[in-house]
């Protein structure tokens, strides 16, 4: 081998080594950028799934849900801070819960009245004190994704959800063992009973541990059953070929059923008696929504047809209906309770109604029930006997909300309702003295 040949080989090897180094470095650089992009993607996806959120905090009177869940669903919203442990008189319009709520009701707690509500995500039950603004979680039994909840004023609760197969699951629980508000520092398990599956509609008696519900029946189409809270003492009191009913059980024991409403479609309402005989309350009303009054034959009802709404009142069955000067649905109204002064019961017929400031185009009810439209409401007080109404607050005073499922306490001082736009829970104080106007 000559010297020239050796030098040539060395040169070739040198070039080869340099080329290998260049290729290796290029590959490493490429691999670095590839890994970096993948890491960014994974971080992005994990963040979206909540993997990067802070560890849960298991503290606070409101429980962990407000601090942890809420921060994830609206991380940038400064107004979403929970109103826990305020310990001061809340504003006239108080946003009790930013989190979605499945249902709420006034419950007696000793000498005072509290608002109880079910958190939609967890099924936890919270109490809110309308006087102090104190918010306390009182149960720790996790029942996720509650779509609908009902309360009685003596501490019974219904929570309704869906199982994986899409069946409706109904749980009847009791809060009788729940801690009193003065010592509400710990949470309790929610004890109760699972009722039969696929209960279509349900009504609770406001004061007694009784439930009325409807289920499908192969022979009759639909049957209505009364039962105690634990599912015992079942008694069938109603059957129908029509399945779509909404039901109200009044404190005076009357059970009112109303066909589910649709715009431009006649609806009927009946009182179901113990003997199964249906007494007609009102009928052949287009888009009928109904609000019966306890211990009185008076009714408020709404009609929806021809693209507009109207509200009507009947003092009793013999008196012709009077059209009220409000365009709303009965779903947005509550009756003011009778007040007793000494031994005299004031049977003045007042109602409070939330009235959309503007109605959306087209038929309202179907769109509203589908969640396709929402309204901005103002509150009105209705004198049913005189057929007049006056505005309670100007729209500038209070936030305009899409009022749904309003309920009033026994004293007639508070109305709790759900904002249909986001299912947050609100409380409106009706006594105007010292009223604040903020909505924190």
């Amino acid at each position, binding site marked *: 081998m000559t010297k020239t040949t050796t030098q040539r080989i060395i040169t070739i090897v040198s070039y080869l080594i340099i080329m290998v180094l260049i290729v290796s470095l290029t590959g490493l650089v490429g691999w670095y950028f590839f890994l970096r992009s993948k890491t960014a993607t994974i971080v992005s996806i994990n963040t979206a799934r909540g993997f990067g959120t802070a560890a849960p905090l298991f503290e606070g009177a409101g429980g962990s849900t407000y601090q942890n869940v809420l921060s994830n669903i609206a991380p940038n919203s400064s107004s979403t801070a929970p109103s826990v442990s305020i310990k001061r008189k809340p504003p006239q319009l108080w946003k009790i819960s930013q989190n979605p709520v499945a249902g709420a009701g006034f419950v007696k707690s000793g000498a005072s009245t509290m608002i109880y509500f079910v958190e939609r995500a967890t099924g936890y039950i919270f109490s809110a004190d309308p006087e102090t603004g104190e918010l306390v979680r009182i149960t720790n039994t996790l029942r996720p994704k509650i779509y609908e909840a009902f309360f009685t004023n003596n501490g019974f609760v219904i929570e309704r959800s869906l199982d994986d197969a899409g069946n409706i699951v109904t749980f009847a629980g009791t809060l009788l063992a729940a801690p009193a508000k003065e010592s509400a520092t710990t949470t309790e398990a929610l004890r109760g009973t699972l009722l039969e599956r696929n209960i279509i509609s349900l009504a609770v008696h406001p004061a007694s541990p009784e439930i009325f519900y409807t289920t499908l029946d192969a022979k009759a189409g639909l049957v209505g059953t009364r039962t105690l809270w634990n599912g015992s003492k079942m008694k069938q009191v109603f059957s129908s070929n029509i399945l779509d009913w909404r039901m109200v059980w009044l404190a005076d024991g009357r059970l009112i059923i109303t*066909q589910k409403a649709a715009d431009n479609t006649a609806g009927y309402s009946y009182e179901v008696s113990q003997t199964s005989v249906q007494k007609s309350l009102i009928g052949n009303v*287009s888009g009928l929504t109904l609000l019966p009054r306890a211990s009185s034959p008076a009714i408020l009802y709404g009609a929806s047809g021809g693209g507009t709404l109207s509200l009507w009142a009947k003092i009793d069955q013999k008196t012709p209906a009077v059209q009220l000067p409000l365009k709303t649905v009965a779903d947005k109204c509550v009756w003011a309770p009778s007040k007793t002064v000494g031994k005299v019961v004031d049977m003045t017929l007042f109602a409070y109604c939330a009235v959309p400031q503007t109605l959306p185009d087209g038929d309202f009810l179907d769109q509203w029930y589908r969640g396709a439209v929402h309204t901005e409401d103002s509150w009105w007080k209705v004198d049913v006997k005189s057929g007049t109404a006056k505005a309670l607050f100007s729209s500038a005073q209070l936030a305009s909300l899409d009022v749904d499922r309003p309920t009033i306490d026994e004293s007639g001082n508070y109305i709790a309702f759900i904002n249909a736009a986001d299912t947050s829970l609100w409380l409106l104080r009706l006594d105007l003295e010292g009223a604040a106007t903020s909505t924190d």
Partner: protein
Amino acid sequence: MITMADSLKGLSFVFFLSLFLYPALLHAQFGLPGAENTISITVTPQYPAPSSSVHLKAESNLLDLSRALITWSSNGKTIASGDGTTETDVTVGALGQQTSITITAAIDSTRASGAAVVIPTQIDLLYESNSYTPPFYRGRALPSAGTMLRLQAIPRFTKGDGSLVPAASIIYIWKRNGELIQAASGLGRSAALLPGPTLFATDTIVVEAHTSDNTYSGSASLRIPSVEPVIALYLDSALFGILYHQALSVRTFVPNTEMTFVAVPYFAQAYSPDDQNLQYEWHVNSQKISADATRPSAITFSIGSPSPFFVSPFLSAGSSDGTAIVELSLTHAANYLMSSNSTWNISLKSGFDQASGSNGSATNNPFEQGF
């Protein structure tokens, strides 16, 4: 009170058009044998509402009533009288309250008479459809092409003692657009399950009811239009479930990189949104997306690379901010009349745009409202 003109309340009455012979005493008094009760009375409307005004018209083949002195009475009280008064009005009683109408006519010594009894009754005619509505929906299921109608007649035939004639002892005759539906009619058949109106059609359903002795009878009718199924799109939240309270609008902003949406076919011929007969065809940015076979009503979108956890279609970033035009076509395997299409413009982001301060307020943003 607002009432639907085309959905007549089931109001009816009972009246006897049979002509009763007057007592022999009267017969002898007026002479002319065979002239009694030869006046027939026509009541309009045929089924008057309780406490409503009805129009009475008298006719006779025997006597020229236009020349006769006529006297009308209601429950024994004279309500109209005069020469040739062949027509008059009267207000009938309340539900179940009998109103006895009599008429006497005289020309010289020739006299004739007639009588009728009106008892207002009531029939409520209720309907709904077996079309799909989601759980906890507070509205009525409406009929679309291919669905069935559930009908229920609730008669109120009030007897003299205030009790009701049992619904099971009443004979019902169901008619659609004037044609008898024999299979649905009969004794005690107060409920009926009938095919709904066809596409864009409006059916008139009539139910006539009477007792076996025809003492009580009544009728009610409904005009029932067919509606088109409505597809609504909702977020299916891992925390809250399906957000039925907030249907997504045409333009929607969702500040997440990954979200599941479900389509709910209101009023469709289906038992559930994932009914095997329903055929969903999803297009995202004009690209056909294969839906999950077990849950074709749902679709999951994500910006960025597909995740191994995805079970539903993956939306690649069509644009920098993840905007997607989502088109859904819904048809039915066995019902060729059912076809619905909807389009949504959905923007997905990984969070609020803090730099610009924009949070999609111009669009329907469920998160903005704490959803």
